[in-house]
């Protein structure tokens, strides 16, 4: 992420830099907490798709602010490597892989978690249907872990992009939680389709004890759970889909939070300092391609 003019004007970006968060995303979690009191009594957390780690930072500061935290635990997982954060166990892995979920459960040593969150977003390809599918799979993987590790009454938060298949997901989540709300923090840009699904009060499905089986894919796991995921039938027919729309809430206290799309006059002392991107880019996979190009080595051979 470079210093585009948008970043320079974005107050959340400056605030993140000032307050020491690795990414402006921190405010999204903070604002969600303001609205839903997500952190109340929370000690054991799984932060999925966590790099560069600002949510983990927020959680770490919150959970480890008092001394009485002997059984507290934060596990952060991402495809990308993450630099260490106090009190956070990091794991570099693909959350769609059932074996990754197994590893996370191992870290919890059979214990339960109070809160599972996922701020996951795939690298968009531009093929909208594929991007939506992968996004939905990230949510499902997070949900799969949540059903296995959350204590009764625990909370689950995941990033969603409003798209074709989302109302379907609401119906499915409704079967697992007391309350399902779609929330858009003020710090999330209005121009992006991003919002967060906040699920409160986990209630395990009656008569079904979710157990992670690394040999089952996420889809197969949910087929057994009967929450309305499409099933594979002998005659290959399509299932009819049930849809339901979740209530929508914009959160972040209107009086004190900034609208991330608006342009604000900068407070005086902030104006002079030029800030580096808060989210230091980790080496992109195409780093070598850029290097070769710079050296002029990408030539036609004839």
């Amino acid at each position: 992420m470079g210093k585009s003019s948008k970043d320079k004007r974005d107050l959340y970006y400056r605030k993140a830099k000032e307050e020491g968060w690795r990414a402006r995303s921190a405010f999204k979690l903070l604002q969600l907490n303001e609205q839903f009191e997500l952190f109340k009594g929370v000690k054991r957390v799984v932060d999925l798709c966590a790099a560069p780690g600002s949510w983990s930072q927020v959680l770490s500061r919150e959970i480890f602010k008092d001394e009485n935290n002997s059984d507290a635990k934060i596990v952060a997982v991402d495809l990308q490597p993450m630099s260490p954060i106090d009190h956070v166990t990091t794991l570099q892995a693909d959350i769609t892989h059932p074996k990754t979920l197994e590893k996370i459960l191992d870290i919890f040593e059979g214990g339960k978690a109070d809160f599972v969150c996922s701020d996951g977003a795939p690298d968009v390809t531009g093929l909208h249907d594929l991007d939506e599918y992968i996004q939905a799979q990230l949510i499902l993987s997070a949900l799969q872990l949540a059903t296995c590790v959350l204590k009764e009454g625990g909370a689950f938060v995941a990033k969603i992009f409003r798209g074709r298949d989302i109302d379907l997901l609401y119906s499915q989540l409704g079967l697992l939680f007391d309350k399902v709300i779609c929330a858009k923090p003020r710090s999330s840009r209005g121009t992006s389709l991003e919002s967060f699904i906040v699920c409160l009060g986990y209630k395990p499905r009656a008569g079904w004890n979710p157990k992670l089986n690394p040999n089952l894919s996420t889809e197969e796991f949910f087929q057994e759970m009967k929450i309305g995921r499409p099933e594979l039938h002998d005659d290959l027919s399509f299932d009819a889909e049930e849809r339901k729309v979740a209530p929508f809430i914009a959160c972040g206290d209107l009086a004190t939070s900034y609208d991330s799309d608006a342009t604000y006059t900068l407070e005086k002392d902030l104006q002079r300092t030029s800030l580096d991107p808060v989210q230091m880019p980790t080496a992109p996979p195409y780093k070598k391609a850029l290097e070769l190009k710079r050296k002029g080595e990408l030539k036609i051979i004839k």
Partner: protein
Amino acid sequence: MTQDTLEKQQQLHSLAHLGPICALKCLNNELILAGDGPVLKIYNYSTSQLVFQRQIFARNKIHEICLSNKNPSNNDDPILAIFGGRSLSIVKLSALKSSSTPIKELFAGDWIMATEFSHDKKELYCLTAHNNVTIIDLTSMKLKEVLNCNWKSILYSGSIRVLSDDKILVCAGTVMDGVLIWDLKSREVVHHLTAHEGSIFGVKASENGKYLLSCSDDRSIKVWDLQDGGRLVANGWGHGARIWFLDFYGFTKDGGFHVFSASEDCTTRIWRFDVGNENLNQLSIMNCHTGRNIWSGCVNDELKLGFTGGADGKLKVYDLNEQGRQGYLNEKWSLKQIGEAADVAFAKDEIIKEYFDLGNGFVGISSLGKVLVCQKFVQWKFLFEDSRYTTFSLVRGFENQRIAAISNKEGNITLLKFDADCNLVHKNELKVDSLSRVNNLITLYNEGRYFFILESPNPNDFLLLKEIDNNLTVINEFKFVKPKEKVVIASFNINSKLENIIIGCRFGIVLMYDLSGHDNTAAIEPSLCHKKYIKGDTITSIKTLSKKDQTYLLTMKDSGYYVIQISSLPDLIVLEDNKIQKGFVDGGFYSPDADLILYGFKSDYFFIWNETQQFEIMRKICGGPHRQWSLAHHYEGSNLRYRFIFTRSSDIELVQNGKFSHPDVLATGLHGREIRDMSVVATKNPTKKLLITGSEDTTIKVSTLTNDGNAKLHWSQRQHGSGTIPVEVVN
């Protein structure tokens, strides 16, 4: 809502889909299947006709089409497996074509990444997004079983290669764990290839199962030898963004092969793999799509044709065997080779300075005044030596007319005429005394007449226009007074009735002289000298568009072009002004189908570009613009034949394309980015409407919309600064 309007509403039905082409497959040597959104289209790629279209899925896009027979003959009835997202349809070609047969949408358990028919064609394998293979029995159309290799993370890409009844390779591209190759029958992972960085976007095994091609977020193409333990054998670097399509073709006896690739960077590339070479060598780059992404491709190995489908909805055809086509030439001569071939001794530091393409060879002059001809573009011959042309000389000529003119500073002009075999048959000498110095000679052939203009750097000198006949004799002369502004001329055009002449200069200055009523002796004052209408650098060419309306096309060095009208002197009306995407424009012309073709230089290459349909016709790396070069072209039917000659560090190189008997484009497409606004205008023709679209790519496009719902692009207007363009029809 009244019953009436309700009925009307129900009568609305969708005609066609114009959008990203995400799937392509050659049906045979004539027909290609294209997935345009949820609609399957069939084009004849010999005639470029759209022969069939039918919507397959309710809303899912078609992502791939798989055939039970490769290259079926006319009486075969292959089965098609068509899929996109979670939808799958399995239909016989005959059933697809009969509109009374409904097409069933099936579900194979998950999002589908790839399908392939079993060796005996009785089963269909579907690789799904969590690395399961769903096997469908095609006789009963029932689920047979679901197999996996015990690794069920999400895939970003995949393919299946059936080698025999019981040897089936499943190739799976993961998010962060590289490529997995597993054996369907044993369900064992046979190779786990981890040299890529990032998510894998493409994997494909060769037909014999020896090689595997893959690409990932790291933008490289990798070649693996699956019969040598899955060893990484070559890397191909070059694409500037993610690669969405890869395939093998052109295997040679020595084990090497070609790769055809297409990318988010909107280029298509050809690569060569040679056994033992760890570089996958890039042979050519083609830039034929606009907007973002080329989504799909396919190769016809037998005819050596490539196809790509883009986010812009364009379906482009490529010649994958340019070198093998009849008439193709690629020659390169060093001065030493020319000297030996023509049996002349060149002095040290002597170079061939200027040359002109005669159509059947080219004539050149050395820095010491040696005149040579390269007959048929292969055989060099020494003609004569003329010391008057030492140090400064210009060689010009008349396009495709076999007449050339050589000039020096002192106004000594030698005219040369060649026969059909490129032998010199006539020579004439002229001496121009009225100019203090000759530093510019510009020629024009127009409807059987030969004109040239001579220019001196002295503002008080006249511009001289001369006309010669077929026997190289001067038959007409005019003198023009230069305007008050300092001008340097670069191009001109003259109407054949000799009424007026229009001259293009540097800094966008347009000059015009009225010739009617003037005899050859009096000096003519300019009737028009405009520099405010045309903005930009040198006017590199002037082409007549309509003689009746006096409209002209001007190409501008700095990547713009104008259409102007000069009907009521002394005014000039700018009808159009536009810019191409990039590069310098050195000239342009119209194709027989009225497509605007522009050519020029961009960074280190020369290009020919179809501006109307927005694609690159040729690209030749030559080191950039500052060099001696020549472009000759003509049309054979609607096929452009070109010859580009250029000098690079004293070597002369020539490329001439061969006969290509296929159309370049099957569907022109639109933007390739989100369309923000559009407007449809009726025309005089009841079957055609004008479609005007504005997009987030900041261009406005004008296309014709036919009654079957398809569009053909005509014009792309650039130059708008901001993202959104409201389109409103003014008249």
